[in-house]
């Protein structure tokens, strides 16, 4: 059992009314963690992050501060953090 933190930002924060939640996961599997979070935040959340094959490319998803696209091993460990942002920009 590992505990993983999910941080939400910008519109996602407003939409789900939380800044962060902690999820307990059996396997530390990314998909499993998001699905479990969906049980708390609602089904929409799962669709906000996952696709059938993997994760949505039009979100910015960071696993321990690294863009998920560049994380080689998606196995999560105790205290790991997933940060999720809608598309955003500034300058």
């Amino acid at each position, binding site marked *: 059992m590992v505990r993983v933190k999910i*941080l939400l930002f910008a519109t996602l924060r407003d939409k789900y009314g939380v800044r962060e939640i902690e999820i307990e996961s059996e396997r530390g599997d990314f998909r499993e963690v998001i699905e479990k979070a969906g049980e708390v935040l609602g089904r929409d959340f799962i669709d906000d992050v996952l696709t059938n094959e993997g994760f949505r490319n039009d979100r*910015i998803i*960071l696993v321990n501060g*690294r863009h998920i696209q560049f994380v080689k091993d998606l196995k999560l460990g105790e205290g790991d953090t997933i940060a999720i942002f809608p598309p955003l*920009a*500034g300058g």
Partner: protein
Amino acid sequence: MKGGYIGKTLFVNLTDGTIREEPIDPGIAEKYIGGKGYALYVLYRRYLKEYMSKGVSPRDIDPLGPENVLVFATGPITGIVGIPSPGRYHVMALRSPLTGSVGSANSGGEFGPFMKFAGYDMIFIEGAAEKPVYIEIVNGHVDIRNAEDLWGLNTFTTTRVLRERVRHRNTSVACIGPAGENKVLFANIMNDEHRAAGRTGLGAVMGSKKLKAVVVAGDHQPQVANVEEYRKLVAEMAERMRKNPVTGSGLPQYGTAILVNIINQIGGLPYKNWQTGYNPEADKISGETLASKYLIKRRPCWGCQIACGRVTRVQFGPYQILYTEGPEYESVWALGNDTGVMDLEAVIKANHFCDELGIDTISMGSTIATAMELYERKLIPEEDLEGLDLRFGNPAALVEAVWRTAYKAGFGAKLALGSKRLAEMYGAPELSMSVKGLELPAYDPRAAKGIGLNYATANRGGCHVSGYTIASEVLGIPEKTDPLTPTGKAKLAKIFQDLTSVVNSAVNCLFTTFEIGARDYARLFNAVAGYSFTEEDVMRIGERIYNLERYIMSLYGFSAKDDTLPPRLLKEPMPEGPAKGHVVELDVMLKEYYELRGWVNGIPTPEKLRELRIEL
């Protein structure tokens, strides 16, 4: 000219009071568009070449002397209704007092469009007045007027007084505050109250010319070359901008400060003068916090549908301010995160004072942060501070330092020199987080390598918007690249730098490039100004502008030795966070970059200049 341009360039000489006018040269316009590009070419051909022919070395040009030339510049799509975010203008100077390189800054608001409505695409300002003056341009009528009664006023009051004097519905004022008058080296030019041509100290150039303000008003309407194509384009682009999640909802809803959290999460939000890149408390000063606690409404620049500008208020307490605008991401970072001040109300107030007094927020915050580190390392003796308690995280000292800088009061006189001179003065030049003397903005390149290469090679010095690789490295626009690898970043930096040179010559807002690219710019120029550019032509023009600017810099003595980063970023591994252990592998990226650019020793070769059809 078929469309887009008003067709006129204005030359005002403040030494002898002469006012001249020339038509826009179609040959130059086709090669350099307008805005930054056109201004650069004229600066070179008309002024630098003439100085050199008289035996004056470009290196001897005093940025604060009458020989410096200041240019307000718009381009063919500035002020054209319906074009994506057409409300911006560019300011150039032969030399910046802060960097010694070319002076360059960009601003929004209404000034750019209204300058065209007043009758001019470009305004070149030469010489220096003996007594304070302002330039008034109303419907093609130009006057140099006495500004003795305005000298000493802050930027808001100056703007209000001059607007009331002109009383035309399209009136805009670009002016300096006390900081510019006092030649603070990073004083800015403020227009329409809260919009800033912020960087490279152009407010000090105005101050040195005793030029308090430029007021523009009028009813000229630029024409459009191909009306049918223009209508189609405008509709298509408006739709695309609206549908794009960034330009359609992210920026309008949260403004630029939305970046605080994401840049912090990747471990690249410089904290306490760049000692680390992660701040556990950053959310206290984030765009989300700003929106939920202080935001009143949005204020767009002229004709902009994105409307990222914030109108904010601090209702109670020591930092009360009932109407202000911003702060932008860069300002929140520099005045807040970089100084360790986690009180957003103090940051809003400091930002307000910067606008009111006419100071660049990035250089201000960053210079204070440098002073804080110098002080905490006991390199600044207590008595030099004259009571200013410059410890990291002290909100009162932050706010206090801003006005002391503007008036050069006490230690403010030293802050007014910028971080480079300050750190040198106290024997620790490495603590200035600047490139070519320009304070770096809000991204630690140890966590996004490409932006490090851009900082090192940006012509105006440590600047992010010259080549905003963050779009790709962090935000995934147009596609995601790994921020922690130096591979491929040379090409990325070059493309962004060239495209941005086009945007700054167009002139419209860089934020539109989150949706539109070189191909779209070609279509815009063709429809509005009657060109027949391809996408490649447009990128070529961008490259030409970037190379011309580089060439000019080489005349001032700049070369590869100046394309570097502060040692902290090259040698001190990031101590924590996702980028832990990383430094910037600058040498590898630079080598590839110079090859791509066709530069030797950081300077375009004669062959390169010929290939780009840059006539010297």
